[in-house]
């Protein structure tokens, strides 16, 4: 939250920054929507395009629970494995904090997500934060790196007191 000087940039550059923030919010929302459609088995082509097209080719997905997975082929295996276990998922992904780098082609974003999942037939609450990197290509923003810090995965009938918080990766 460093103080920013608006006066060094033109009004058009400042408007571009606001548009970039809106585009990254839209991208992360689309990630959640398409992830949920896939995990709910509503889309036969998933996780292929359009879902994997949201990522840069060398993108990384990592979490404190699932480890680190690099490159779209590895992400495809990771997500396909989730779909084998889950029959329902909703990623309620909210509260963006987005910072666009001075270059205008790199950005970071933080979100909270509250997930309702059916895993092995059982209802699960999953609470996590995202701390992600984005890159701007000629045709728009792409996900470069997702870091998901899972706080708890709690059976609906038990709650999270025994598990939360799981050990976190550094931001």
């Amino acid at each position: 939250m460093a103080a920013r000087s608006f006066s060094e940039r033109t009004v058009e550059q400042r408007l571009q920054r606001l548009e970039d923030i809106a585009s990254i919010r839209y991208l992360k929302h689309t990630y959640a929507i398409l992830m949920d459609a896939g995990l709910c088995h509503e889309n036969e082509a998933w996780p292929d395009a359009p879902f994997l097209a949201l990522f840069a080719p060398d993108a990384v997905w990592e979490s404190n629970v699932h480890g680190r997975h690099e490159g779209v082929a590895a992400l495809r295996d990771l997500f396909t494995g989730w779909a084998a276990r889950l029959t329902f998922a909703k990623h309620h992904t909210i509260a963006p904090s987005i910072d666009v780098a001075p270059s205008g082609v790199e950005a970071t974003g933080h979100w909270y997500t509250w997930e309702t999942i059916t895993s092995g037939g059982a209802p699960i609450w999953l609470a996590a934060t995202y701390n992600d990197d984005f890159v701007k290509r000629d045709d728009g923003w792409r996900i470069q790196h997702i870091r998901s810090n899972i706080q708890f995965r709690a059976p609906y009938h038990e709650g999270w007191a025994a598990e939360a918080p799981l050990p976190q990766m550094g931001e």
Partner: protein
Amino acid sequence: MAQTLEQRVLLLEEINAIDRLKQEYARTLDRYDTGEAFAALFTPDGVLDIGPMGRYEGRDAIAGFFNGVRDTLSFFLHYTMAHAVDVDLEANTARGTWYMWEPATRNDEAYLVAITYDDEFRKVGGRWLFTLSRSTYHFMCPYDKGWVEQRLPPD
């Protein structure tokens, strides 16, 4: 009064900056940063009014409150959403409301908390800070009991 294009862009930037500050408030709490780091989000005369959990005036009191919170609350996540922000560009002040949904662990028991915030801000040296964060607690209840019989703990 007609606004220039520059003023219209500035208003959007300020609304973004204030929600960004409110998210920093949530993240600072949820990382269990120091009370001093949390208090630095307030002006020196800022007030933290958290209803049943007390009213704290000035950075030292705010820091002291947060440094002691872990004794009873060993875990929480502040899902802070749906902002409505009004900015006075001439006065460098603003007000904002948010909803907040919080899974927590209180005295080793899972809790759910629902709050709305009604906060006030001042821009000092190019940076927005809280002058007042006011929480209204709608419920703070054991997860396994829900909010119907008792919305707030008796203690």
